[in-house]
């Protein structure tokens, strides 16, 4: 015998089945002890959970709510905004400082390499024989 699935029992309890489906399932439940026991467990849980009462909000709820609408932003909001603004400013400053340092470094590197080239071309390259003594002689001139 094919039993009723848990989902179908749940659908039956939740009124989510059409008349034909209800008839088929209730007919099965009338002679299947196992399925009717499962359905009984499901409905007793439902009854227990329905004893959880509704709780009313305070009588002043609506007035408090309307008062909230006209409230200025809290300090918490202002501080959060201030922190966010500070973080953005710091990020921008760090970014530009980084670019500036990068440019300085490259300018220095370029100047260094061009001065080396200058020395190489103006001083030492004149001494084609590369002899140390000729350099000394030249200095002493």
């Amino acid at each position, binding site marked *: 015998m094919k039993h009723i699935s*848990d*989902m179908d029992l*749940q*659908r039956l309890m*939740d*009124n*989510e089945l059409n008349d034909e489906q209800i008839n088929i399932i209730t007919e099965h439940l009338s002679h299947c002890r196992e399925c009717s026991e499962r359905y009984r*467990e*499901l409905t*007793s*849980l*439902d009854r*227990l*959970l*329905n*004893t*959880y*009462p*509704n*709780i*009313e*909000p*305070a009588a002043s*709820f*609506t007035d*408090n*709510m*309307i008062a*909230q*609408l006209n409230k200025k932003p809290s300090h918490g909001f202002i501080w959060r905004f201030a922190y966010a603004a500070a973080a953005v400013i710091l990020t921008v400053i760090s970014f530009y400082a980084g670019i500036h340092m990068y440019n300085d470094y490259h300018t220095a590197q370029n100047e260094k390499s061009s001065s080396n080239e200058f020395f190489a071309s103006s001083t030492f390259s004149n001494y084609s024989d590369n002899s140390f003594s000729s350099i000394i002689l030249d200095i002493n001139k």
Partner: protein
Amino acid sequence: MNCTEKDFRTIIEEHKDMVFNISYKYTGNYDSAQDLSQEIFLRVWRYINNFRGDSSLKTWIYRIAYTTSINYAKKHNKLRAENGMIIGTMKSHDDPHRNILNKNIMQDIEKSVASLPNRQKMVFILKQYEGKSYREIGEIMNITEKAVENLLYRARLTLQKKLKGYL
């Protein structure tokens, strides 16, 4: 929708019980329910002019209640179900032992519901306490009816295990 403060007062009056009940059952705590209800209505106020009437106003408020509750749970990480005010609102019985037993049952139900995973909890509250159909819940939470069924089934299975002693 052009909403004045006066219109909004009417909206609050008409929906506050529903919003508060969802919030209470979602958080399991009176103070948190108060907080969450206020957040829901503030959001309704903020976006009411965007409401185009594609669904009923009530469905739209349910939808806002759902998204606000999920965000609230994320923000507060772990919702506390203890110290609920439900005990104070229960009708007293003549028999003190019976009264204590009922308090314990209510506290256990409250804690068990509040401790369900967020989506399961919302599906369960909308079905069990708001009497919504699978289709309506799917519309509110933007999920399929099949997903509603599965979430509801898992929620009930967990509650059945947690509340076994009372069944």
